[in-house]
């Protein structure tokens, strides 16, 4: 049941896709090309003296132990954020999928945080957790818990993981809820008739049917944690204390815009770009295999 419209000639089809091509060129190809070019140069901040240095920036990058640390830190951060936000979202979605009073209201409240801007969310977290002015922070200190995420790297990492995961719970919640609702009731009813109880039913029936959603969300969450959490981290810790919360995107910002090392920062961007390309390729491959079968 596939319908296809074939346009005659060449000019008209090209004209139709031209706006999209133009957008892709202006907002992706052109800046990406610039990034690749400047990743192979060394320039002063003003761009007055630019020399071509080939792969020297990349060599410097991968021989720098601090960069390797940052890669490891980013991996830990991404996995923690994905697991936490997806776990919480799945739990909430399973709860919201039942027949409960005020279900609509409950769902709307859960979707809300998605609309909060990262910087605003970070300020709210600061008002809660700041060791000197935050509600929870002060309470912890008063009760003998030495809480100071501005100086304790582990605490700082937990704070940015918590804040980033919280932002993403709503998004995951929507997808999990939709996924749960698309599972035919008859299947679940049949399982129930056969005597499958709560957890067992969830593990053997619901979860396998939910796997496509889970896999999709894993990729989306990894990309989110790796690239979209800059605002939250910058507002909360600026990558500190020490380098405890400096993920790869924070490092790109720090080196490029604060330290004005355009070449080195571009090289990092190119590495990140390759990361996204790989993740996207994996996702496409998986999705196309699923539709084929």
């Amino acid at each position, binding site marked *: 049941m596939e319908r296809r419209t074939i346009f005659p000639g060449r000019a008209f089809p090209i004209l139709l896709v031209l706006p999209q091509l133009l957008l892709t060129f*202006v907002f992706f190809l052109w800046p990406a090309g610039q990034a690749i070019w400047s990743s192979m140069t060394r320039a002063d901040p003003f761009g007055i003296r630019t020399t071509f240095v080939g792969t020297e920036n990349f060599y410097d990058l991968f021989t720098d132990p601090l960069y390797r640390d940052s890669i490891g830190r980013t991996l830990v951060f991404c996995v923690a954020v994905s697991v936490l936000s997806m776990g919480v979202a799945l739990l909430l979605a399973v709860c919201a999928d039942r027949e409960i009073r005020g279900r609509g209201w409950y769902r709307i409240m859960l979707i809300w945080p998605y609309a909060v801007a990262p910087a605003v969310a970070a300020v709210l977290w600061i008002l809660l957790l700041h060791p000197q002015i935050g509600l929870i922070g002060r309470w912890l200190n008063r009760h003998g818990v030495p809480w100071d995420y*501005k100086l304790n790297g582990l605490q700082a990492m937990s704070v940015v993981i918590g804040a980033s995961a919280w932002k993403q719970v709503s998004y995951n919640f929507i997808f999990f809820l939709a996924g749960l609702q698309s599972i035919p009731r008859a299947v679940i009813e049949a399982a129930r008739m056969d005597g499958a109880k709560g957890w067992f039913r969830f593990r053997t029936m619901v979860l396998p049917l939910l796997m496509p959603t889970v896999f999709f969300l894993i990729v989306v969450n990894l990309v989110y944690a790796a690239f979209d959490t800059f605002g939250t981290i910058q507002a909360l810790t600026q990558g500190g204390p020490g380098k405890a919360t400096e993920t790869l995107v924070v490092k790109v910002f720090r080196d490029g815009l604060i330290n*004005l090392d355009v070449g080195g920062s571009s090289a990092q961007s190119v590495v990140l770009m390759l990361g996204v390309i790989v993740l996207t390729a994996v996702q496409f491959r998986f999705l196309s295999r699923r539709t084929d079968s």
Partner: protein
Amino acid sequence: MHRRTLLAGAAALAASPAALPATAWAQAASKTKVVFWHAMTGANGDEINRIARDFNASQSGVEVEPIFKGSYPETLTAAIAAWRAGQAPHIAQIYEVGTGSMLAAGPAVKQVWQLAQDTGLKIDPATYLPAVRGYYSLVDGRMASMPFNSSTGVMWYNKDAFEMAGLDPEKAPVTWAEFATAARALKEKWAVPTMAKSGGQELMATTTSWFAWIQLEEYSAIHNLPFATKADGFEGLDTELKFNAAPQVKQLQMLLELARDGAFKYTGRDNTPDPVFYSGQTAIGFGSSAGRADIVRNAKFKWAAAMLPYDPAVIQQPNNTIIGGASLWTMTTPTRKPEEYKAVAQFLQFLAQPENDTLYHQHTGYVPVTLGGYELSQKQGYYEKNPGADIAIKSLTRGTVTENSRGLRLGRLPEIRNIVYEEVEKALQGQQNAQAALDSAVARGNRVLREFEKSVRT
């Protein structure tokens, strides 16, 4: 072609977010407009607007428009991005540690001596205080940028807290040993967690703003120790950091020990700890003398300022402190007309008039940058009426300026400061000792200096 105009439009939009409303355009059409990007907030930000208003009212040919561009590093970055897009402001306020980068900016800036030459308006270096002028001048004495807001590190202390801790509120600690004793006394007798006294706030005996600047750069200058080779970078780009010597390690060690015992608390980078002092949460807060305006506005307790302590075991006659703050750089664009540069020079001349300089000094806590401004404040009896307001300038003019106390001329110094913060934060977490922290900061900082050297030499 289509694409290019679109891009140029987008770049212009990004670079000049302060597009004027139509009515302002009509008024400003006959005047030469001078756009002034600055990084001042709070009371100091209001003061910039006052200066612009006064200048605009004082003559009819030029209209200065001050625009707040964020923190110092953000302003520097914005100015560089704007210049690359051909949209640089006429004047950019660049912090002192950005001086090394700006001096390497070649055609992007018009240095003060050049501006004076091109416009024929006289700007005389001799009217400025030597400790201020030196930081912003070329080795031969020609001025590169215009001294504007200069401060220096001082020690703010809470007299009420001193009294409560059984310390003499009229006698601030003079040496670092006395400071350590006072800090421990404050910890024992004042910073005890009783909710009634502190209103639920956590009290901490001592803290510091600008750790890298005050505890390391200023410390080195006061004790006549090189921060870097080649006269702190003034005499060549092949300079190397030297701040991991025994005295600086001892200083960091002392702070680490006080922190361990709860008598010193690290409360963040740069000036983020400032509110901790004026909200009354700490008894001693090291900070910039420019914090005065906010302290006057907010502090609900008796306070005073004192010079930064020194260590008599290292030096008997301490040197002058070095300045912090920022200077004004004249920036270029391909289409900028001679009359615009002339307008810039007029504004800079206005700032240097003794009456304006002294007003700015008294309103903010920055030091007067001209000798005339300082003399005028003395003549007006300002320092008798406001004891301690001259601490900063006394501290800057103490002794004679040596090559270790003239200032720092290092490229990418903001990055080096961040490295210092990172290593010190690791030491405060107990991950390394003082020597290891400074060794590591020096090693990482030297790599940055070599990168900078390569980038401006090629």
